């Protein structure tokens, strides 16, 4: 499994964590196309922050090198944030390489 595959696996584990906090109709699918932000998203701002914190924990538990994901990500405004799980995985791989 490549870096991106491991990151996606970690993100899906974070989705499992966050789905415990969501009602069934709002639960996130474990798919790259899952929308996280924007007009079609299920998460509110608190839910998105909880996902980012869970993602940081899961990614750093499974993948090296560790990334300060929450800090790096949340400096951005909403329009610049990754809007899908796949885009978030891409960003994390970039951060790991930088």
């Amino acid at each position, binding site marked *: 499994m490549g870096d991106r595959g491991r990151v996606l696996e970690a993100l899906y584990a974070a989705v499992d964590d966050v789905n*415990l906090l969501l009602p069934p109709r709002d639960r996130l699918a474990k798919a790259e196309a899952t929308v996280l932000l924007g007009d079609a998203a299920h998460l*509110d701002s*608190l839910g998105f922050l*909880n996902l980012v914190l869970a993602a940081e924990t899961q990614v750093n538990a499974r993948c090296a090198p560790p990334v300060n994901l929450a800090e790096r990500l*949340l400096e951005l405004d*909403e329009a610049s944030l990754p809007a899908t799980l796949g885009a978030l995985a891409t960003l994390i791989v970039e951060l790991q390489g930088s």
Partner: protein
Amino acid sequence: MAERDTIDERIYGPTDQDRFAALSGDRNPIHLDAVGARREMFGAVVVHGLHLLLRALDTLIGTRGGGRPVRLRGQFPHPAFLAVPVTTRLVERAGDGSSRLSVESGGQVCLHATIEWDDAPAPTAPSAAVSEPPAGPPAAPNECAADTLTGREGRVDLWLDARAAARDFPRLHAALGPARMAELLALTRLVGMECPGLRSIFSAFDVELAPDAPPARALRFAVERVIASASFLKLRVAGGGIGGVLDAFLRPPPHTQATYAEVRARVASREFAGQRALIVGGSRGLGEVTAKLVAAGGGHATVTYCAGRTDAERVAAEIAAAGGHCDVLHYDVAAADTAVPALARLRPTHVYYFASPKIFVKRGGPYDPSLYARFAAVYVDGLESLVAACRAAGLPHLRLFVPSSTVLDEPVRNLEEYAEAKAAAEARCALLARRGVVVTLRRLPRIATDQTLTLIRHAAGDALDILTPIVRGMNDGDG
């Protein structure tokens, strides 16, 4: 064994809030001040998260026939509000003896927690005494700015009104004893009153409880991590028989609109001299800016309020202090007829209708008819009642501004009821126009107000930029 048993159902009210605030010492106004809370991110008074947890523990001890919680892990992903049923479910009783709880309200999960238990017999030695609650008036919460959190540490005195604890949480108090109860209750006092205090959102906890540890005089805390961009902090706590970590966010303050001095710099001193404007919902947000524009342009503004009298008086005082004209009027959109005498006295030439309930509401299902009804009662019925009241006050010629929304052009998930009510308001405006009311209707984008407060940086238009041309257009009714 997977289960999903409902173990408790209740509705929290103001008395519950007062009692828990007194017991815990967490008197953060988000839990107690209905008028102030309407300007906050959640838009209403929020039940203490720790209250949900302690209530669930107390119930669960009864359900399982005893035991002492020794480790508590969980999150508060969504607030619970007053007057909305709150259901506690036992989601799972795991093979290791731990319990997983979910507390839900309004279709949202408000607490998800895992509890580990010690089922050994309770210690027979009586617990040592815990300090009584402090005398004197309660202190106001600290307001820690995000840039002051790194490295912050301190202590919160431990105390307990043991009689009140035994009254409100009898099984939990009996199982834990007064020292552990005092330590648990201090967690919400730490977050809500001390660090980060006033602007806190208690988000998560992971604490262990040592049943036999002696009581301590204080709970020590240290900020372990701060993510300034997310307004997030992690606190490590220890004291007596409790230790662990807490997560919290700093919620944004209510949105501050342009000052009257800033507004005056945008308009000519007499350009709105012909407007005697009634601004419904003028105590804050778009109504506040409109009132300042009208007054800065030489017109006479009357701002109405339903709950926010202090806010309305603040707007009027700011305008009056700089020589402008602004009055304050109590006005309830659901009882417009009671305002007829005031309308007859004020004789407004222009009416701006900014009344609105909380817009961004998490709902329990795919579509909530009661939510639509709440919006329509204000946007449609309230508008009709206002026009009727103006007619009854002898004001046949009205120029009326009604804000609609761009969500009608670009649908937004979870705002379907809002959009539908705005569409109905537009249709009602067309009817009013046919009945001789000069109506100006604009679909406004997302604008920075209390309604659009969020924890993520979100682009939103500036109220002054957007409203200035609208108020100018209202001079001749073309908005």
